[in-house]
């Protein structure tokens, strides 16, 4: 503003009362828009916080597992009668009887009543005998000795200690009897019943008992599928994108391909599952429930995303780079592979990782190819049956046992952890290799 205008404001739109009103209106509109934006962010944040809070508060207890320390006698006459270490004898031995005997000795006053004994035995997980066998398999010197070992407690005991089975519930409606509570308290007083860090949930496969169930098989299955997806989708997707972006002529045919790729990216994932069933299992005869089929289906699913991301990344490389390379005598292929592609790499990798993160969370296409399944044993390779992390979450969420509610949330936390790592990797790659022009 100049002095002249300050002294004698000219009549006109800038100092009329109209103008002041309009200005205020515009400022108000801007303020309102900011408020809407802030509101939107707060609503989003509130949902996120609620979601995370629910999952973490429900899932955190599952990372602790009640275990009972017992002095188990590994009976030589039962495990290895011949003394030769025959593996069949070791596998077949009745470890349940050994751990149960140890439990009764520890409790002291169980008596000989069949029902009372059964109630006492229910304090231990039905997988406790498996744990005892694993100790012998790992260390043969245990045979004939007495060992002090931690054994997993039953899921109901665990739920009771974590408070999801309430003591105030009348006994006939409680899954833990008063007698069992007395035993639990005795074990706790002796320091033999404790919540310890839960390794089971990371290492074991599916189980019908919550205390013996883990995401190990599912995590390995998911990992195998992702490896297959990367190995197939990355080269195919990048090659397709380079051809379409750099070499393909612009005509009706390539336009059609482009439209189709964009549409494929929006196709519901279950469709890829149906396709996978028809092509890979029924036509090629690949085995059901196998990570290779899952990987192939997820490849199909993530290809469009990778192609679109790669093309965008290639487009973002300034034409001057290309021109300079060509001008210095590089062939088109040299220009692309030596100059354009390396510069586009951060974009390509970010797109790929996001596509993979999306693929990691898919259950729908896996339903059709039999991967929504109960798999106990670890797969030996991509042809053996396995399941996937989100599938494990889905299956656990359907089960009525109290222990599985916590496990479901814990598995969600593990999956979120994986996704977080992948997204962090994407951001790191982008910032590390990003170039500005």
């Amino acid at each position, binding site marked *: 503003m100049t002095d002249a205008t300050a002294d004698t404001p000219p009549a006109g739109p800038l100092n009329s009362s109209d103008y002041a009103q309009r200005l205020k209106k515009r400022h108000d509109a801007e303020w309102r828009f900011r408020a809407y934006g802030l509101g939107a962010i707060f609503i989003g944040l509130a949902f996120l916080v609620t979601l995370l809070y629910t999952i973490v508060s429900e899932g955190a207890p599952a990372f602790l597992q009640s275990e009972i320390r017992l002095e188990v006698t590994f009976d030589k006459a039962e495990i290895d009668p011949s003394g030769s270490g025959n593996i069949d004898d070791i596998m077949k031995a009745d470890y349940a009887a050994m751990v149960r005997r140890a439990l009764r000795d520890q409790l002291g006053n169980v008596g000989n009543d069949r029902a009372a004994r059964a109630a006492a035995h229910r304090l231990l997980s039905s997988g406790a005998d498996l744990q005892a066998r694993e100790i012998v398999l790992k260390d043969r010197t245990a045979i004939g000795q007495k060992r002090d070992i931690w054994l997993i407690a039953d899921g109901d005991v665990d739920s009771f200690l974590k408070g999801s089975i309430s003591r105030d519930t009348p006994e006939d409606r409680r899954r833990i009897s008063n007698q069992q509570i007395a035993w639990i308290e005795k074990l706790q007083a002796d320091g033999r019943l404790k919540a310890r860090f839960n390794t089971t949930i990371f290492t074991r496969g599916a189980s019908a008992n919550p205390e013996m169930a883990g995401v190990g098989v599912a995590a390995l299955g998911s990992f195998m599928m992702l490896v297959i997806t990367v190995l197939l989708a990355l080269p195919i997707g990048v090659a397709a994108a380079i*051809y379409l972006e750099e070499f393909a002529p612009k005509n009706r045919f390539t336009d059609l391909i482009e439209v189709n790729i964009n549409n494929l990216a929006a196709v519901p994932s279950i469709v890829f599952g149906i396709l996978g069933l028809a092509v890979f299992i029924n036509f090629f005869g690949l085995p059901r429930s196998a990570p290779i089929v899952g990987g192939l289906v997820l490849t199909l699913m993530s290809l469009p995303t990778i192609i679109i991301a790669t093309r965008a990344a290639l487009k973002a490389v300034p034409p001057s780079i290309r021109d300079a390379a060509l001008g210095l005598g590089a062939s088109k292929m040299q220009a692309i592979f030596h100059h354009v592609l390396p510069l586009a790499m951060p974009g390509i990798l970010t797109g790929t990782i996001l596509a993979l993160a999306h693929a990691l969370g898919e259950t729908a296409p896996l339903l059709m190819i039999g991967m929504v399944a109960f798999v106990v044993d670890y797969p030996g390779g991509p042809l053996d049956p396995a399941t996937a992390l989100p599938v494990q979450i889905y299956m656990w969420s359907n089960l009525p046992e109290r222990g599985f509610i916590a496990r479901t949330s814990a598995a969600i936390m593990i999956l979120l952890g994986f996704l977080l790592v992948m997204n962090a990797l994407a951001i790191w790659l982008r910032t590390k290799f990003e170039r500005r022009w």
Partner: protein
Amino acid sequence: MVRQGNDPITIIKEVRLNRKINILAGVAMAAAIVAVGIPSAQAQQARDQVQIAGSSTVLPFSNVVAEQFGRTMRQFKTPIVASGGTGGGFREFCRGIGAQFIDIANASRPITRAELDSCKANGVNDIQEVRFGYDGIVFASHISGAQIAFTTRQLYLGIAERVPQNGQLVANPYTRWNQIDPSLPNVEIAAFIPGEKHGTREVFEERVMASGCRDFPEIQAIPAGAERTAACIRVRKDGRSNDIDGDYTETLARIERNRTAIGVFGLSFYDQNKDKIRVATVNGIVPTVEAIANGTYPVSRPLFFYVKKQHIGVIPGLKEYVEFFLSERMIGPDGMVTDKGLIPGPDAERAKWRETFGQGSTLGS
């Protein structure tokens, strides 16, 4: 190829480039073929693991058996149990004979004629039907409410779309349970029943709705057949009866929100959640394992699985798995599957199921 010019150098370059791209494409194609081809060659070998799919009601029971089977029978691998519903299981099962097709279909209802035909069309001719126990379906409300005693007749009047009144069928006028019968609680009618895709819905329609409407003269006036059935089983659509397409966990969540509502659950689910829900009696019978096993509790159904006989002897462990499933250790009164909420059949029946499987008699033969 984009033509960049016709001078010889460009053309030569382009030819070279073409060759390189061809080689590149060739390598990519070869990689893809190898990736798909190698496993498919291996897949022709026989499978060494039983594969099962089907009903989500049978799934938890099947899981227990599979887990224990793998643990006890060291010479066999642990069977794989996939879910997908009874119908989905039969679809997989009937696809054909061979290692890439499943061996056992879990089912919460008998196989239908249409499904059997589709099996036959694909060469699945020898199917063994195996019964292994019962499933009870219970009506439960929130633990804070009072104990309710229903009859199937009252349930029908509360949930049906049209009910008999003064000689004709009218749109369901009841809004509170005590309007139907003063003995019922004075609360709004709200029911959560399994959705159409569930096998449980069929049992509900047949054992509750159809049996509850049977005695009304207005219903008997309709000629027996599809029309009468429809009049009996159609549920009200005014929001008082809600289909649950998810599982019992969802029903439980709804009940916890709406504490006067009643929901339909499996007995095994109720058994795990006795501290949250209270079960109603039906026709004066408390749903207990005993009452369902001996048939006095009206709403129950047998559970099945179907075995591909043509796979027995080909897939290692298939026969052993079925025998293991039918053993007393699993489905007996103190068996591990029974601990998970299966209702065991009477002693004589269990023996008969084992015998039937041992004889190897197939459906339709």
